[in-house]
């Protein structure tokens, strides 16, 4: 794992990508820090961080696009996969290298609260807690980019795919508010979701019988549940899905000064999930 980690890290700084990424993140943080805190005189750096989540949409795809896609394109994955090292370690090495690159602008950002402290009142605890949450959110988005990059051998597709997925996560709270709230609307929406899952299942297993059984079971379960307790369907989707919002946790830190421990665990477990999915995507390619 260390070998892959070191190689990746070196490659980020041998090419422009590492520098471009760091420069971009530092520049945006710097501009907002100057406008909000230095010129604006507002003492909380946490608010500044909370308002620049959008930077991830541009910066993360730049960082992650080549991670797995380039290995496929130059066939260097043949080297990694035929050497005595597990896929998990390769993927982890790559992930940690990207996290390390991302840590550079975060370390610079960690100076900002101190600058505020030298000039007057500061709220170091909330500021550093928010930096932590911001960092973990970045790690989660990096794992999403890593996963998308493992699906294609084109860096461009990886970059746009990651951008699209991150945009979806970014707009999640607003999108969720458009979901049906009435009980029967929820039932229909659930049916659509079940059908989508069954379709995915079928495309992976090519097993018609299994897919039909799952679809039928889902249909029966939804109808029975609806007949028995229609009231529990009320606003079910918005309630469940809005709890999956990624940006909400950071808002808790940045806007409400709440240390959302559960939220941090949510970030970490989602990150682990996407790293795991990346390993699976690589394995799947081997077996197809």
């Amino acid at each position, binding site marked *: 794992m260390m070998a892959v980690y*070191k*190689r990746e890290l070196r*490659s980020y700084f041998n090419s422009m990508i590492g520098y471009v990424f760091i420069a971009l993140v530092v520049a945006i943080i710097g501009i907002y820090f100057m406008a909000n805190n230095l010129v604006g005189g507002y003492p909380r750096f946490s608010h500044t961080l909370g308002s620049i989540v959008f930077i991830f949409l541009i910066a993360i795809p730049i960082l992650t696009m080549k991670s797995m896609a380039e290995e496929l394109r130059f066939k260097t994955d043949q*080297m990694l996969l*035929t*050497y005595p*090292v*597990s896929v998990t370690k390769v993927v982890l090495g790559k992930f940690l290298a990207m996290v390390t690159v991302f840590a550079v602008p975060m370390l610079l950002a960690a100076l900002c609260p101190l600058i505020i402290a030298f000039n007057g009142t500061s709220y170091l605890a909330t500021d550093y807690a928010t930096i932590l949450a911001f960092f973990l959110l970045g790690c989660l988005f990096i794992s999403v980019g890593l996963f998308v990059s493992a699906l294609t051998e084109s860096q461009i597709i990886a970059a746009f795919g990651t951008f699209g997925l991150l945009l979806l996560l970014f707009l999640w709270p607003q999108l969720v508010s458009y979901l049906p709230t009435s009980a029967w609307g929820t039932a229909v929406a659930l049916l659509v979701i079940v059908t989508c899952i069954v379709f995915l299942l079928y495309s992976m297993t090519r097993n018609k019988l299994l897919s039909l059984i799952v679809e039928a079971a889902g249909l029966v379960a939804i109808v029975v549940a609806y007949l028995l307790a229609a009231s529990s369907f009320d606003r079910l989707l918005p309630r469940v899905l809005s709890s999956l919002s990624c940006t909400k946790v950071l808002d808790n830190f940045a806007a409400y000064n709440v240390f959302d421990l559960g939220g941090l665990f949510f970030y970490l477990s989602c990150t682990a999930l996407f790293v795991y999915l990346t390993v699976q995507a690589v394995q799947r390619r*081997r077996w197809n």
Partner: protein
Amino acid sequence: MIEVRNLVKRYGDRLAVDNLSFTAEKGRIYGFLGPNGAGKTTTMNIMTGYLGPTSGDVIVDGRSMLEEPEEVKRYIGYLPENPPLYIDMTVSEYLTFAAELKKIPKSRQKSEIQKAVEYTFLQDVNGRLIRNLSKGYRQRVGLAQAILGFPEIIILDEPTVGLDPKQIMEIRDLIRNLGREHTVIFSSHILSEVQEVCDHVLIIHHGKLLANGTPEELERQMKNTTLELTVRSSSPEQVKNMLVAIPGIVSVAEDKNDQPGQVSLKIETEPDTDPRDDIFYACAENRNPILTLRGLDMSLEQIFLSLTTDNVQPASSSVLKQFGKQEVEES
């Protein structure tokens, strides 16, 4: 040393490798022969753990590639068709990375890299970026990573493609050197190369193993299966009918002959039979004097062509049967 057991690889509906089995011993050089798309690369990719088989297994030193991939991969060095190079690294950086990834102990890394570099004549380009190297040098860097640490099994997929004649000679020498103490398996579609370098030839076609033996064995088995006969006669049909009746003759085909009153024929016989005496007596009886009668020896090239041509001729199908038998015995 390395055993391939009933390997099957299916891509959708296409069967790339069809129930392939063979064993490769230490200290020998194995040549994989086959036309393009025969399944050579797929087989090698499965043997090295890059791809997973649909069914079957690869056993190295009693360990299964499916169950203990990391252990088994330690024994194998692999040069794929396209050398897997990180073009943003220098040669020495790349080989250091390879050594770390192969888990060669730190104390031995330097000397192992040095050995691999000397073996592949890379001393001059050690500090250069791989991006700036020519195709031949890139191939050698790929070879250097494969032999790095001198694993017991070295698998090379078309190692001489794209090299100039001098480099080809160097790589062949290198393979011969490696073959003294290691199991070397390499694929090629250059027959003379296989004949020159290999102790053992495996001919693969449509994912199936068609022949398995030393070049001499294969040639011996194919010997005298074709006879060339010219007799004095005015009726080719009559001569043909006469010959077909002789036991051991599989088919008779008319050859071109411009001389009037002469008939030339190509006779395919079953292997390990010699119907020449019978042909002589039959011709004498029918008063068709024999002008020439000679056996055609098949070179490895002809063996290869006759085995891998899709509209299999009767003679080669009988040879096929024979090789098939041998294959079963070996597995």
